[in-house]
């Protein structure tokens, strides 16, 4: 065990901090601290431009191999980058699905041709991606997807038909990765394929879904004979489940570090407000602030523990399973704390028709944290059954 950053790491930290302070100015000053979950509808165009500025500076995809435009940055350096990014008030990354989910999946499972075709767009901050997993009848039971993919011999293309739902940021995305059924004879997680599909085509229709928050960050996405080329399936028909699960593993990998920095910013803001409106005098609130702080520290240490010593972060394994349940529960409590710190004002919106303040958005969005990416109930089942090996609950048969 060695719990220190090296001198080289500290030098890297200074380099990141300098670049950010030089670049988060002018047209980008306004995006400081904006965007991210619950605030995705804000400054979208500016944040898209910011994505490209980051890329020009070489600050996108820093963990990727140099051959694909990354810096081959160590885990420590990725940690440091995320810390400094949060400290500087770097805006929520519109490119995060591409950088943290699609990119690593392509690197792990994609062909060279696929990497050549898609990685540069992600790296340069030009192409934005969204995740087309859930369907009306496939939520927790993800393997129940009904979207069909049929290979059309004459055109040598895949034709995709079906409906996805809750697709975050589909309305801003250039591409979607989709799990679809390639073999209609097969049920459940067999007979699926993992497809890379351009959004801008006649067969794809996006319809926003308004959330509890009055804003629309997720969407229904309809595929009506949408097409992609023969090369746009990762792996073989039938490999879809394996690739889809591999991708979810990355969700619990390095990308968690940036998220924790965001949490720290939120907690700092809550503490600031508690001090200024007097609620920090209330012993119950003081205790909950301390609880929130120690919970976040533990989250951070455990992520660092999970990440250290693992060269291949696709195989985070057993520890990775506990992460989603831990952070979503912690964050849900933080949302409630934010409201209690606001006190009677928690009810009052900034403006009409439904403009939420930052802490209100935080609170409302945390109600979804325990749902997306696998609900808390499903996470507990996974921990108990897969990590601990306890007897499996009977699942019923998918229809």
């Amino acid at each position: 065990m060695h719990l220190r950053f090296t001198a080289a790491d500290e030098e890297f930290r200074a380099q990141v901090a300098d670049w950010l302070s030089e670049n988060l100015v002018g047209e980008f000053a306004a995006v400081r601290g904006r965007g991210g979950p619950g605030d995705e509808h804000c400054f979208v165009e500016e944040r898209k431009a910011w994505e490209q500025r980051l890329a020009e500076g070489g600050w996108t995809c820093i963990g990727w191999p140099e051959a694909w435009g990354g810096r081959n940055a160590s885990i420590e350096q990725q940690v440091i980058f995320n810390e400094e990014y949060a400290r500087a008030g770097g805006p929520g990354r519109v490119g995060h699905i591409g950088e943290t989910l699609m990119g690593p999946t392509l690197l792990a499972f994609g062909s060279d041709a696929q990497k050549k075709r898609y990685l540069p767009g992600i790296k340069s901050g030009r192409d934005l991606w969204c995740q087309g997993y859930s369907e009306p009848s496939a939520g927790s039971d993800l393997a129940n997807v009904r979207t069909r993919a049929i290979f059309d011999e004459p055109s040598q293309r895949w034709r995709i038909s079906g409906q996805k739902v809750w697709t975050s940021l589909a309305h801003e995305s250039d591409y979607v990765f989709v799990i679809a059924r390639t073999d209609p004879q097969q049920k459940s997680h067999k007979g699926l394929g993992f497809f890379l599909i351009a959004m801008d085509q006649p067969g794809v229709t996006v319809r926003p879904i308004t959330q509890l928050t009055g804003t629309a960050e997720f969407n229904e996405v309809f595929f009506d004979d949408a097409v992609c080329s023969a090369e746009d399936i990762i792996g073989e028909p039938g490999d879809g489940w394996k690739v889809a699960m591999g991708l979810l593993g990355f969700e619990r990998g390095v990308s968690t570090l940036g998220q924790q920095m965001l949490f720290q910013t939120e907690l700092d803001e809550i503490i600031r407000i508690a001090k200024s409106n007097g609620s920090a005098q209330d012993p119950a609130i003081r205790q909950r602030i301390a609880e929130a702080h120690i919970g976040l520290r533990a989250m951070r240490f455990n992520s660092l523990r999970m990440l250290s010593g693992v060269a291949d972060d696709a195989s985070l394994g057993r520890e990775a399973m506990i992460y989603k349940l831990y952070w979503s529960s912690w964050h849900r409590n933080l949302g409630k704390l934010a409201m209690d710190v606001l006190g009677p004002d928690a009810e009052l919106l900034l403006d009409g028709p439904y403009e939420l303040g930052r802490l209100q958005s935080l609170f409302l969005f945390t109600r979804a944290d325990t749902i997306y990416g696998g609900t808390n109930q499903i996470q507990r089942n996974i921990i108990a059954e897969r990590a601990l090996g306890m007897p499996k609950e009977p699942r019923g048969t998918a229809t």
Partner: protein
Amino acid sequence: MDFTFSDDQLSFRDALHAMLVGEVTTDRIRSRWDTDSGTDEALLQQIQAFGFGSMLVPESLDGLGLDLVDFVLLAEACGRAALPEPVVESAMVVTPLLVDVLDRGLGNGFVQEVLDGLIAGTTSVAVAHPINPCVNFAHRADWLLLEHGDELHLIHRDSTTLKSHKSVDPSRRLASVTFDPSSDTQIANGEAGAKLWRATLNRGALASAAQLLGLTQGIIDQCIQYSTDRHQFGRAIGVNQAVKHLMADVAVQLEYVKPVVYRAAYTAAVSPDRADFAVSHAKIAAARAAMLAARNSIQLHGAMGYTWECDLQIWVKRCWALAREWGDDGFHKNRMHEWLLRPNALLGPEFTFGRRSITDSVDVA
């Protein structure tokens, strides 16, 4: 000792519930969101026909002479329907305050007239207690009851300045109120004023608590339905223990809140000066159950529960608002522990329902 409600009380509640189920559909609640008034005037007439205006007015003042125990079940029914109109507060908070003013021989020429208008359903009145930053439906009130220190003022809305605020609950219509207090508008002051405000706080907190009970029940109803209708893994999601337990936990809390709220209604009815403790307990417990219901119900609905389209939000957002109105958890817990930790706190079994002798100088529930 008897915790049961009479057949009359229960059938009155059932009749109101049946009417609200028919009239307060979620479509009609949502259509109110697009209007300035936020109210359905025809429905208000129907509710008035139930006697809401006169129920808590003594017979000597031409009312029905019922009390808070009679009314608490009706408030609960209004909560269960997520009724947006502020009829519970009007009947349970505003009207008793005006009655108290007259009882004490206070007031000015207008008080009787305003009360008569409330009884007849022709006048509406809202009350601004400093514990709430805003007044719900202030803009549709003809008269406002306002606080200035210990003073109580009754003032026509036209002579006040209202500033609208949006609520997290789109069914609510909030405004902050400013006014120029004068001797013409003042209807009580000093110790009498302070007492009136304190009783008002208790009745307000009780009104929220009773509605929160109903809201919690309304949420359970929807979750039972959804857990039966929604299928995953080839069967109803409600089959899973993890899903069932979400609602079982709420149901247990709800049942344990009911007697607390009913007892608070009783104490506020029979010894209003000593109701602080009982009311605070009721508000804390009802808000806690409702907050759990709100949280678990969204969870049970999955992503659907996070949409604007899902009607669940109507109940959930009301819970969030009412849990804070008339004193949040911290405020009411402070009131409780201040009393509990007194050296002379009366905690023995003989004080289960509070102090028997009202000549006692210690101020307890």
